[in-house]
């Protein structure tokens, strides 16, 4: 959490000149989206780079969404859902996880750094964790630099 | 029925009568035995309690030496059986250890050689029917407590040829020979053989309880299938009797000796004279006169 705050504060736009990654986050409605809401209600700061798309379940996230995002200029993609075993729809996040693994392999094969695709588990009660995830994922993608396409 | 035979140290010394009776019985039942070439001691308990790797390296090397024959390895001693089986399990399930062993032995062993105890072979390969068919002198209702000891069935994942808590293989053989297999609770209780020399006080108690329950069940003798059990229960019967406060005088026979008797084996094959607690009396009781003649022969 401290991480997240310092990242948010020290990386003010005014102080930064370098690359700001565009990251799209697919958040499951029941856990992570609500967790992100909680981060808001608790006023826990984090970087602005990730923009959320609300989906009913992480299992809804089609591989094409991820590829589409990168094709259309995103530098990284985050898929986040309920913790394993907690899925609102029982197994959706397992499918998501499996798809995530396969996609990362495909990325490697295509010459895309698999780290551009990130996945996390974050529950509705984990506002602080969400802030941390955003900070970490942003940092990670920042390190990778802009996605130049393939 | 061909087998590669791993006798283990005792078979050539303390358990000479196990060896001779087993060889005789094997002949009768048509089992062909090829002794593992240049076999050596499996290390028994002392090796694996001192250095687990050594405890695995010794049996594994023996199995490697048995490999060229391509036959199942038959063994008589429960301790050897346990060690050889454990070596197999490690070779199959623990790749890290398998590699370390390959480094020591200079050859990789993948657990491909089945290790069988002779009880398993008797009942599952030879078959109870065959065992029965060869009987010349039925045991005439001899009341036998089969004692399997602790290592033959444990742990079940390693041993797996009979029920771990209430094994019956030996009982089936006894019944086939015309004896009465007794239901008794101490079939698999440990007799403390590993303390036979160092802590005879412990052995006295353990053997004493075993003997008491055998006696309670009405046993005329205890049948065993392991040299360590035999020598321990036989040798330490004095301590056992002292502990329990009764004179047991319980003959401890190898199951193969009972088989040899029933198959008409000669005195040398059966080797009844080798026990410390008089075992010949059992045969006399069963066959009366004729029996004693047979044993003399």
């Amino acid at each position, binding site marked *: 959490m401290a991480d997240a705050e310092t990242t948010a504060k020290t990386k003010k736009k005014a102080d930064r000149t370098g690359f700001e990654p565009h990251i799209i986050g697919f958040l499951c409605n029941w856990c992570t989206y609500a967790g992100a809401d909680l981060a808001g*209600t608790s006023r826990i700061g*984090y970087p602005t780079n990730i*923009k959320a798309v609300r989906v009913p379940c992480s299992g809804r996230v*089609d591989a094409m969404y991820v590829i589409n*995002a990168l094709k259309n200029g995103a530098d990284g993609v985050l898929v986040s859902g309920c913790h394993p075993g907690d899925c609102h729809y029982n197994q959706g996040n397992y499918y998501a996880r499996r798809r995530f693994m396969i996609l990362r392999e495909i990325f490697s094969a295509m010459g895309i750094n698999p780290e551009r695709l990130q996945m996390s588990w974050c529950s509705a009660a984990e506002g602080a964790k969400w802030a941390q995830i955003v900070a970490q994922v942003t940092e990670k993608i920042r390190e990778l630099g802009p996605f130049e396409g393939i | 029925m061909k087998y590669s035979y791993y006798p283990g140290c005792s078979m050539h010394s303390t358990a000479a009568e196990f060896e001779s009776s087993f060889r005789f019985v094997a002949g009768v039942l048509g089992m062909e035995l090829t002794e593992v070439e240049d076999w050596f001691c499996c290390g028994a308990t002392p090796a694996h309690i001192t250095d687990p790797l050594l405890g695995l390296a010794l049996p594994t090397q023996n199995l490697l030496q048995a490999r060229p024959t391509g036959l199942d390895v038959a063994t008589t001693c429960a301790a050897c059986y346990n060690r050889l089986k454990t070596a197999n399990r490690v070779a199959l399930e623990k790749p890290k250890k398998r590699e370390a062993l390959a480094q020591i032995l200079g050859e990789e062993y993948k657990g491909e050689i089945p290790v069988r105890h002779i009880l398993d072979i008797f009942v599952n390969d030879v078959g109870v029917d065959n065992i029965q068919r060869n009987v010349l002198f039925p045991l005439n209702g001899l009341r036998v407590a089969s004692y399997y000891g602790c290592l033959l069935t444990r742990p079940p994942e390693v041993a797996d040829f009979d029920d771990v808590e209430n094994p019956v293989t030996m009982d089936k053989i006894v019944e086939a020979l015309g004896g009465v297999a007794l239901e008794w609770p101490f079939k698999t209780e440990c007799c403390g053989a590993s303390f036979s020399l160092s802590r005879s006080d412990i052995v006295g108690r353990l053997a004493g309880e075993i003997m008491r329950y055998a006696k309670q069940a009405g046993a005329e003798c205890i049948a065993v299938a392991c040299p360590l059990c035999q020598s321990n229960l036989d040798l330490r019967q004095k301590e056992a009797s002292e502990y329990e406060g009764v004179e047991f005088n319980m003959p401890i026979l190898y199951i193969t000796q009972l088989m040899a008797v029933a198959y008409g084996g000669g005195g040398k094959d059966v080797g009844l004279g080798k026990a410390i607690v008089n075992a010949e009396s059992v045969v006399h009781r069963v066959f009366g006169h004729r029996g004693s003649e047979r044993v003399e022969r």
Partner: protein
Amino acid sequence: MARIGVFVCWCGSNIAGTVDVKKVAEEVSKLPYVVYSTDYKYMCSDPGQNMIKEAIKEHRLTGVVVSACSPRMHEVTFRRTVQEEGVNPYMMEMANIREHCSWVHDDMEEATEKAIELVRMAVAKAVELEPMEKIEVPVTKRALVIGGGIAGIQAALDIADGGVEVILVEKSPSIGGKMSQLDETFPTLDCSQCILTPKMVDAAQHPNIKIYSYAELEELDGFIGNFQARIRQKARSVDMELCNGCGDCWNKCPQKKIPSEFEAGMSDRAAIYVPFPQAIPNTPVIDRENCIYFQSGKCGVCAKICPTGAISYDQSDEFITEEVGAVVVATGYDLFNTDVIGEYGYGEIPDVISGLQFERLSSASGPTEGKIVRPSDGKKPEEVAFICCVGSRDDKYGRPYCSRICCMYTAKHAILLHHKSHGSQAYVFYIDVRAGGKGYEEFLRRATEEEGAIYMRGRVSRLYRDNGKVVVKGADTLSGAQIELHCDMVVLANGITASPGAEELARKLSISYDEYGFYSEAHPKLRPVETNTAGIYLAGCCQAPKDIPDSVSQASAAASKVLALFSGDFLTREPNIAEVNPFTCTGCFTCREVCPYDAIDEEEVTVHIDGKKVTRTIARVNLGKCQGCGICCAVCRSNAINLKGTKDLQIFRQIKAFTGSEKEKSDEPVGSKK
């Protein structure tokens, strides 16, 4: 063409303090399809909502984007707002610029930039929104209860009292379940039969309850509100109408040596029998496996003796189909089979008995009329050992879970032993005593303090016979000692397992179950009586081991769910469910494999291909079952299945909008279909 209005909220200073709302409104006004945009202090207030309504009228808006707080907060509010002005409520989209933006960022410039992006994404989606209607399904107001133990009986009674007809299907010849076999019950020691039998009678006499005993569910079709249950009425070989329960048949039947299930094998029954005297219905059945007539064609004594001519050897199984709107599953449990634990010698040592056998020994209606004696010689046992966790909390036997009731019933057994067999001593071997219920700890203390049961903390390693006694090799881990007791009798507290056939039934119902065969609830905390299949509810031990109070609570909860479901003539559900495109679906049914709710049905469609008529089987989403998770959509290779409200196209537009590929009005307008 879509005409979108955007409303940017200040939320007082909550948003406006960090986000330049005016700038947001101005920037987004430049987006394609946006015909109006504005900002206001409190969008959710009455004036705010009126503003939206006015704008809809004035600018003929087809869609609305409210850029404010989280949709989890006010989505419903604004949907209602637009609906009131005649716009389909699902044409409203929210952009979360409060929780996801103003509250978590403090740099005005950055936050404003992000807010614009978020609104841009919302607008892109709004352009692709489609009107949707809530789903209404008619309901058949009748319920099916499967299993007639205490849980099933309670559920049936509660539903019936709510004025709804109930079909109660019980597989054994009588209802009553395990509770009918118990003696007194913890923690109050009231007599099980005294409290159960009146309920059984109530169920039998209730005008709204129809009982099929000796019957099983064969098949369940349909979905919530509209199930068709096919029930197999097994042949009783006795005509229920004619039989008056006189008992002549079972008294005269020559085949009397069949171990009685009800008495847990402690006494025998005849081939024609009622399980116990208070059975409901009190009509016997012929156990054909054991009947001489059915096995060899001889005998026929019962038919000769029956005064009413009720015996009917040529009866065969019958099938009945019942229409129901909801199902309560209450199939209970079975006891762990202790035979497999070799070291305990159950089945070999006669004086080693199960907990249920102890109940029968102790019950006044049992084989010994309540006298506690040992099975081997009928003598009073002096020393009795009770062993807890037998087949529970034991990985060796694949059951790591706690069976939850055995600690308590063992404490009860210890008390009953001391009550009924004076001078006997109970020794209880336990690992932990789990006494979490109301009055349970006090009950346990009664066993140890008042009754003097000796508790020893250790698992028993072995039991064996010695001179008519059972030797118990145990340990007391608290003192560190090994223990060897010579006991007269040993009672094993068998753990609880799923009832036989649980998995088969689950497949018929398409509900899920855990690795042990217990049925899975829809959510472990918040939906403990529902299954994943809408309209099917759980009660009692079929879901997990529980005691009677918990079984009854769950049964009443399930009943209230059923009654709530039946409170209207239609079920109303959110419309965001999956939808199959019949032209592109290839009928691969990958979607069915992943659907957690079994919501994919098959459908035959006839299409014309090259002038030829072709009939194909494709997927169809079951309106009653689909919960809108979208998992199916992500796996469909032909993109033939889509989730309403979160369609692929809607998401793609959002993605494009986010990355800025669709920023200015000058861009080619997207969504050409508008």
